[in-house]
């Protein structure tokens, strides 16, 4: 904690005269009576403290990070440096349109690129994160039914493998979430879907490839069934990386999609944001898109607001979402081009399938062995847990010792003792092979010296944390001893 370095009266610039502080011309009445309780450290101490912390970081810049369902791919530095050009950075969001034409041109182009790559009729960039994109998507489904006077629809269907945000977004928009089971082969249980569909169905939320890492093969049939029942199809863009430019959600029959630019379009990821979760829609939902959007009248780029789009579900944030994140995605898309996007899909799938096959060869069990992986796949360590008493969490912790961030563990919930592995297209074959070797080593350790694995990690700044106690006895706020 930086507070532990704090000494009363210490300043960043240690040798300046403290009397200087008294030269303030702020009236006494406006000054706080008690100091704010900020850490008092020198600049050197602050730099060292945060540099040390950053060195403890396990990140994509330093380690293989195959976190399934998260698409932790490498973010090209160019995206960051171009989005940080002074013209972008110093543009005020209230600057007149005539002073913002460059930025607006980028946003317009990004809307167009996302339309093309998803096959949707129209796109709005304004949702500030994936979850807000989901909320916007379901709100548009609601607006569509309401506008038609079709107000008895009360349910959103969600597969049991779905991300937890899906049912949460449905509930936030006033719907009841109803779960549809997944079949043994990883596809949706079609009979259960048929039984669940009816006049109460507002829509279905799907991820394709699904959260179990396989492509939903009967998507056309599902789309037909849902549309026939009067419902709409929502596409969660979590796994868009696998099909980027290859298969388009619009062509599969989806009516609404949200995209996670931090996954597929290589913008900053994790740490709670800032994010960007643009939404795309089919023609019949276009009037409801959140504002503002950018249009081009042949001469100028202009903002479309509530005035031009009166049926919009409204605004989700001040101004146009997270401009800097959208710019990074725009640069990324332009760097790749159409062919590059195809290669993203091809190599992310190739890497996942190569890794899956090799891990199966060295004795790991796939959750869906008969299926081809999409850009990610699930292993189940059920056998190891049962026979050796070494579970998925033990494997995950031991990987840290070997310099690998663990894949996603215990998600999706329907596969016991699972690891959801997503190597992404940015990893080289040597790095994939090295991961296989590490997994093989840990497997041998689990067989011969299980305690070594069960007590891992051994080389990290902190050892195995008591996550049960941490959750039961929540202690989140730092308090001074004095």
């Amino acid at each position, binding site marked *: 904690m930086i507070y532990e370095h704090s000494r009363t009266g210490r300043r960043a610039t240690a040798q300046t005269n403290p009397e200087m502080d008294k030269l303030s011309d702020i009236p006494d009445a406006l000054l706080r009576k008690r100091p704010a309780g900020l850490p008092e450290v020198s600049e050197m101490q602050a730099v060292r403290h945060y540099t040390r912390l950053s060195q403890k970081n396990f990140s994509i810049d330093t380690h293989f990070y195959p976190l399934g369902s998260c698409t932790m791919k490498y973010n090209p530095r160019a995206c960051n440096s171009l989005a940080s050009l002074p013209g972008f950075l110093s543009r005020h969001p209230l600057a007149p349109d005539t002073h913002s034409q460059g930025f607006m041109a980028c946003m317009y182009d990004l809307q167009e690129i996302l339309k093309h790559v998803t096959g949707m009729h129209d796109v709005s960039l304004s949702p500030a994160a994936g979850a807000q994109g989901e909320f916007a998507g379901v709100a548009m489904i609601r607006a569509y039914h309401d506008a038609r006077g079709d107000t008895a629809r009360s349910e959103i269907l969600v597969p049991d493998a779905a991300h*937890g945000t899906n049912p949460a977004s449905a509930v936030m928009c006033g719907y009841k979430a109803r779960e549809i089971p997944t079949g043994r082969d990883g596809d949706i249980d079609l009979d259960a879907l048929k039984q669940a569909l009816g006049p109460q169905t507002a829509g279905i939320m799907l991820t394709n490839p699904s959260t179990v890492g396989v492509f939903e093969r009967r998507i056309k049939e599902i789309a037909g069934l849902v549309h026939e029942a009067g419902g709409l199809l929502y596409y969660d863009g979590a796994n868009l990386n696998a099909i980027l430019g290859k298969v388009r959600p619009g062509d599969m029959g989806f009516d609404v999609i949200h995209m996670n630019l931090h996954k597929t379009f290589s913008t900053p990821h994790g740490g709670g944001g800032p994010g960007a979760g643009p939404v795309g829609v089919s023609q019949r939902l276009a009037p409801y898109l959140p504002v503002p959007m950018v249009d081009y009248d042949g001469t100028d780029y202009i903002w479309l607001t509530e005035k031009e789009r009166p049926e919009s579900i409204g605004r989700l944030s001040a101004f146009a979402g997270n401009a800097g994140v959208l710019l990074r995605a725009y640069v990324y898309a332009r760097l790749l081009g159409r062919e590059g996007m195809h290669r993203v899909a091809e190599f992310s799938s190739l890497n996942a399938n190569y890794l899956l096959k090799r891990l199966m060869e060295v004795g790991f069990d796939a959750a869906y062995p008969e299926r081809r992986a999409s850009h990610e796949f699930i292993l189940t360590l059920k056998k190891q847990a049962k026979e050796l008493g070494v579970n998925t*969490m033990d494997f995950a912790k031991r990987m840290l010792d070997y310099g690998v961030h663990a894949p996603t*563990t*215990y*998600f999706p*919930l329907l596969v*016991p003792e699972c690891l959801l592995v997503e190597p992404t297209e940015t990893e080289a074959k040597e790095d994939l092979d090295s991961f296989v070797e590490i997994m093989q080593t840990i497997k041998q350790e689990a067989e011969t010296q299980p305690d070594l694995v069960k007590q891992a990690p051994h080389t990290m700044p902190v050892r195995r944390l008591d*996550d*049960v106690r941490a*959750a*039961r006895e929540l202690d989140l706020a730092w308090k001074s001893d004095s």
Partner: protein
Amino acid sequence: MSDTPKELRYAKSHEWLRDEGDGTATIGISEHAQELLGDLVFVDLPEVGTKVEAGGDCAVVESVKAASDVYSPVTGEVIEVNESLDDAPETINEDAFGNGWMFKVKLDDATELDSLLDADAYDALVAEEDH
């Protein structure tokens, strides 16, 4: 040899139910369910007086691995909840079929009990899912 109590009934979603014989029933989650979830850290119980539907979610159990809905096996009204779980969710891990009970329901329709599984059928279900 199974430890699944013979006197209880079971739902496919891994809840158990004890028919108290007076039009009420006590409900919890099975030993198998607690084992899959691992160490529980939080239990969200329904409020007394809540109407529950058979198959409807009415409580949440959360472990370090996962948060999972608990479904009521029967339709009725919640008449009592096991408040000691608020401070000691681990009771479910320690004694799922006993002190780890979650809530009691006044049954709307006692014949609903007939559609639940007996211990043998539940064991077969667990074996099948484990396969």
